[in-house]
Each structure stands twice: as C-alpha cells, then as structure tokens.
C-alpha cells in the first residue's frame, strides 16, 4: 500500500501548492466556479495519471499550465458547439476578471478563443492573457520564438477580421 500512500501524498502536495493557480487560471478562462472546479479536478486527474510520462525538466508548474490551457480551450470550444457562450453567467466577485479588464472584453476574449485555430488560441492565451514574453511562451508551447510570433500575428489578423465582421453584422 506504500505506493498508493506515496501517490496520495504527492497529490496532496501538488494540489496544495499548484491547485490555486490551476483554479485561478481555469476560473478566468471559463468564467465561473463550477467549471473551474471541474477543470481543476480533471487537470489533476490527468496529471496524476500521466505523471510517468511527464518531463521533469520542464517543471511541474509548466506542465500543469499546459494541461490547464489545453483543457480550458477544449471546454470553450465545446461550449461554442453548445451555443452557451453568450448565455453564461459572469462572476460578480471581481476576482475572475483581472484588474485592467471589463466583463465585455473577457466575454469577447472567450468567444474568440473558442473559435480560433487551436495553436493560435494557445499562443493568444500565453502571450495576450498571461502576458508572457515570446520566449516564455515558446518554452511553454515547445515551439520556436519565431513560431510564437507568427502564430500570434495570424491570431491578431484573424481576430480583427472576426470583430469587424461582427460589427458589420450588427
């Protein structure tokens, strides 16, 4: 039973240390506590199940960041399919929406992320949402800095066109 006890200790340790960060990130990207809890649970289940294949060099936090980003982007895409994105309830606690943003811009962000191409959406989260430098994002995405720049440029062009298209449709 020692193996399972060790695994449980590791889970508790990781959860206490990294859990709030995973939760905060999921809550911001998904917009409510129910989905953030769901995401945190799924991220840790996936992480604990896949820990043998995890690259120790990258660091646990980098690895969890990556799983959380991918999971949340998938949820946003699923929501898009269910046409629920516009109907979601926004948190009024103020903590889910960072300091410099308003509710409308966060809603717009989620909608764009739900429609964008997967790699472009990831780069947008790392650079535009998290505020990472291109080098930092490149490390998290395991691509070159140049690729980050190209993906970001494509995302921005696409997002501008998408916003314009919407304005014209109003």
């Amino acid at each position, binding site marked *: 039973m020692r193996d399972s006890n060790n695994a449980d200790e590791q889970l508790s340790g990781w959860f206490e240390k990294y859990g709030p960060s995973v939760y*905060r990130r999921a809550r911001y990207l998904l917009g409510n506590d129910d989905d953030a809890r769901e995401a945190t649970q*799924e991220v840790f*289940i996936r992480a*604990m199940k896949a820990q043998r294949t995890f690259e120790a060099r990258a660091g646990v936090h980098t690895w969890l960041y990556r799983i959380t980003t991918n999971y949340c982007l998938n949820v946003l895409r699923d929501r898009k*399919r269910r046409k629920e994105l516009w109907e979601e309830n926004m948190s009024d606690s103020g903590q889910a929406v960072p300091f410099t943003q308003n509710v409308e811009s966060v809603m717009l962000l989620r909608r764009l992320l739900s429609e964008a191409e997967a790699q472009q959406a990831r780069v947008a989260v790392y650079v535009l949402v*998290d*505020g990472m430098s291109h080098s930092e994002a490149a490390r998290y995405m395991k691509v070159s800095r140049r690729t980050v720049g190209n993906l970001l440029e494509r995302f*921005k062009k696409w997002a501008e066109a998408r916003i314009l298209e919407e304005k014209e449709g109003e």
Partner: protein
Amino acid sequence: MAHRDLDKLFSTARSDCPSDALLDRYHWRVLDDELQQSVSAHLHDCPMCRQRLEFREKGFHAFDAARPEAMLDVIRSGLNKGVFSTLISGIFKTPLRIATTAVGALVLLVSLVFVLYSYNNVPGASSSGMRSMGGLELRVFVERSGRVSEALSGDEFHPGDRLRFKVSLPHEGFVLVVGQEDSGRLYRVFPIDSGKGERMQSSISLLPGAVRLDSSLGKEKLLLVLCSQPVDIHMLSSSGHSGIEVPSGCISSIFELNKTKVP
C-alpha cells in the same frame, strides 16, 4: 480594431509587469536568484502586482466557492483505477509473486467461467434491458453543500444537487446515459451535447461534465447503456413506470434517484 488594441484588450497586466506564470514561479520561489530579485524590485514599485501576489498568497482562500476538499475527493475517486494498476504492477516484482499470481489468476478464471456459465443458464436471461453480470456499472457521486460523496441507488437526492458519474464498462462500445422522469419522459445525461452514444474503451472512467438536478420531485431513473453498435436516445423506449427498453445487442444498468425537497 488595431493590433495594439487587442493587446490592451486581453492583457491582464501592464506590459512591463511579470506574466502570471512568472509571478506564480516567484510565489513558489523556484526562480533563479537574479530573476527572483528582479521581480522583487518590480513588486516594490507596482501596487497592482503586489495585489496579484497577495491574491496568490491566499491560496484557495482567495476563492469563496473553490471547495478544495471536495475537489480532492473527486480527484482521488477519479484516480482509483490508477491505484489499482499500481497495486497490480507491485505484485509482479518477483518471480515467486508471478508464480503465485498465475495460480491465483487460474483459480479466478475457472471461477469466472463457472459464474458466467451459471448466469447464461438462468431461464429468461438476455442482454437486453438487464444489468450485465460482466461488470457494467454506473456509479454516482453527489456534490452537496461543498461535500462530495458517493450515492447508492435508491438514495434521496435534492434539487440543486450536482452529480458526476463513473462508469465501469466490461467491453468497448457506444455509451449513453439517459434519465427518466417520473412521468416516463427520457432526457439525455451523457454525452451532454449529443443524444448519440460516445464510443469508449473497456475501462473504469469518470465521465466528463456534471448535471445539476432540477426542482422536480419524485422517483427518477438513470440508465447507463452500452451498445456494440451506435446508439441514440431515440432508439430507447420508455415503458412507463416500469423501466426503459434498450435495443437488442445493448446492455444496461439502472440507478434510481428519489428526489425529495431540501430538508
């Protein structure tokens, strides 16, 4: 909207502020000394980032609705299969254990064949509409007032309860979970965005997504259906209060909910 407006729109901090990831790593003290000092210097001059750091220092206490203990319960429950695998792998560490295990497995296999043979000879037994003896199982976890616990078929549930499901599948196939209201009406539970069954491997899996019980009261049923062919909710027929008929070639497992008012 120009590019720079997009930057302003999405960014959670000023461009010269540390990223979320960097601030997290500063908080965990895993940065090298030079970077740790550089972030410290920034924090000294930036009240917004000090606020971001204070938020991190509160951990889960920063979120009223986080319920970390309840989340840990669900994670542990989702990892049960992994623990089982670990125990099995531990058994195979020495040749003696392998031999012991082989004998044990043989005894288990003979017993299983005997049980299956006996079951198949029960008069009137068929795969349709009956709980499989091969291990098809629907387990239900309920989150109520921040606590998660496993519920048993026939237990009392209340409006607002949040349910998650774990399924044990004896073989690969198309999986559908439907609910049946007291009136006999069927509604889909899993997959959440489609009435069609999702193809899954033979396994014990925590299903993605959760459902919240509505305000209606009375007896309801949840039915886990596993079919070798694609299955759709429209292929199931409700037989009033007595149950749900599933297509030929499918097996099913029923879980009963007794929905009562919140005490």
